[in-house]
């Protein structure tokens, strides 16, 4: 990365010492608003909306932290869960496995489908319209419906039982439309002139898609994957009847496992373990924050790399 804007400190001007004619004082602004009260009302409304949104978020995080942090203890991170010690370690590990498995299934499919729709299918193709509509519809289906399907198909019909695998497949179907749609948008945002440039040099379709279009679309695709991770980590309804609620570190993909969100649900369900539930919420919050942070860093690095290399 180039540092263009390195300004010597001696060149810097103390902005407050100059009288800029293009900046208005508060009094001037108020006088302007007097002329159009509606503008003032709207101005106050958007400020209020921003403040309320931020305050709600802050309150929520603060509430969870205040309630949860005092209940955090090392015991909650011991390897085994028991009725005496509601350790969240198995759930934490299951969450990671569940996320990875679901992504491994859904991401290649979603990206592949999007590449077909954007790069290969002819415009106005009927299949494209149908696939797109199916994806839109699927993304509006409540997650409990996915859970029901997962239970009937993966758990019962395929005899997988309550298992990590059944849960992962169910979640994969759930996030597939999300990954596909975001990838599609990212691919569509790549300017056609890059494709033309590549074709103009005699590069074929495959090379153009994989060397030129996909690298440019990576940040957008990753944004979709981050959203997908958020849905996986926060999902309960689709998992309770597919991967079950066994609170042990899964030994195989066929073991039943509960993720952190399901763990929280189980803890609060009978009202006995509210403190532990709050502590779990803190960890879940941190996990989500860490994932978002890592993904953002990753997206930045990939974007920078696709430019540098």
């Amino acid at each position, binding site marked *: 990365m*180039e540092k263009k804007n390195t300004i010597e400190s001696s060149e810097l001007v103390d902005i407050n010492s100059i009288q800029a004619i293009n900046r208005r004082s508060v009094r001037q602004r108020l006088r302007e608003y007097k002329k159009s009260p509606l503008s003032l009302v709207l101005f106050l409304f958007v400020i209020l909306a921003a403040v309320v949104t931020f305050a709600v978020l802050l309150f929520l995080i603060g509430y969870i932290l205040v309630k949860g942090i005092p209940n955090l203890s090392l015991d909650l991170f011991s390897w085994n869960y028991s009725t005496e010690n509601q350790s969240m370690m198995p759930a934490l590990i299951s969450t990671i496995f569940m996320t990875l498995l679901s992504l491994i299934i859904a991401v290649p499919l979603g990206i592949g489908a999007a590449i077909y729709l954007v790069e290969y299918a*002819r*415009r106005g193709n009927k299949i494209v319209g149908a696939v797109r509509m199916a994806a839109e519809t699927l993304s509006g289906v409540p997650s409990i419906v996915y859970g029901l399907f997962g239970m009937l198909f993966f758990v019962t019909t395929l005899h997988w039982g309550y298992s990590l695998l059944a849960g992962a497949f169910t979640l994969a179907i759930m996030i597939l439309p999300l990954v596909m749609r975001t990838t599609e948008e990212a691919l569509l945002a790549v*300017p056609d*002139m*890059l*494709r*033309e*440039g*590549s*074709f*103009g*040099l*005699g*590069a*074929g379709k495959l*090379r153009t898609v994989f*060397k*030129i279009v996909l*690298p*440019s679309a990576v940040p957008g695709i990753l944004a979709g994957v981050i959203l997908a991770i958020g849905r996986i980590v926060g999902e309960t309804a689709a998992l309770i009847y597919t991967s079950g609620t066994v609170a042990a570190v899964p030994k195989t993909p066929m073991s039943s496992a509960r993720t952190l969100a399901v763990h929280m649900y189980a803890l609060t369900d009978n009202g006995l373990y509210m403190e532990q539930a709050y502590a779990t919420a803190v960890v879940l919050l941190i996990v989500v924050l860490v994932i978002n942070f890592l993904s953002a860093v990753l997206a930045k690095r990939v974007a920078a790399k*696709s*430019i*540098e*290399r």
Partner: protein
Amino acid sequence: MEKFKIENLDLYYGNFQALKNINLNLEANKITAFIGPSGCGKSTLLKSLNRMNDLVEGCSITGNVLLDGEDIYGDMDVNHLRKRVGMVFQKANPFPMSIYDNIAFGPRTHGVRGKARLNEIVEKSLRDAAIWDEVKDRLKKSALGLSGGQQQRLCIARALAVDPEVILLDEPTSALDPISTSKIEDLLLSLKNNYTIIIVTHNMQQAGRVSDKTAFFLLGEVVEFDDTLKIFNNPSERRTEDYITGRFG
């Protein structure tokens, strides 16, 4: 010697006929300019010469386009055709990668491996495009950091890197300032000994300055095709004269 022979070419976008019975012989190692008002079909014809129109849905072409006597719409591999007939677009379109990789993309596409060989190609292409001195210290930096004029010369270098025989330029300087424009014009003049160059331009002075031959297009037809000097000084068609003297267009 003729490089391209275009015979009875008609081109339709859907039901609309954009090119009508084009017959042109484009000579090797010359610069041919296509001029004419917007929408007259000059860019469309240019894009037919390396089959970029294949990407346009609903585009149908009849007639013959021969490159060194070989039908480019026949058995010729499209990717190989585009390697032989390179293209520079109206708007500079560097790939979002380093300057080096922009140039190396084409050769890599056509199977050139080996660092030494690629280094050689990159340097030669950038030198030929008269941009080497400006970028030699920042080959690994993003091409997007270059100025508009530099980007366009980079795109020319990128086209040169696959060792084409013909270079098509579609209004390559329309978005550039006069200094960058004159650099690119000088560049074209220095390249014409080794390449056949076909340039679409809206700028009649540019056609006058750089080209040996000029074709004047109007409403999908070639009105007149002759030596540039003849077209600009003593056109045989009234419509050519009207356009060149600025009476319309």
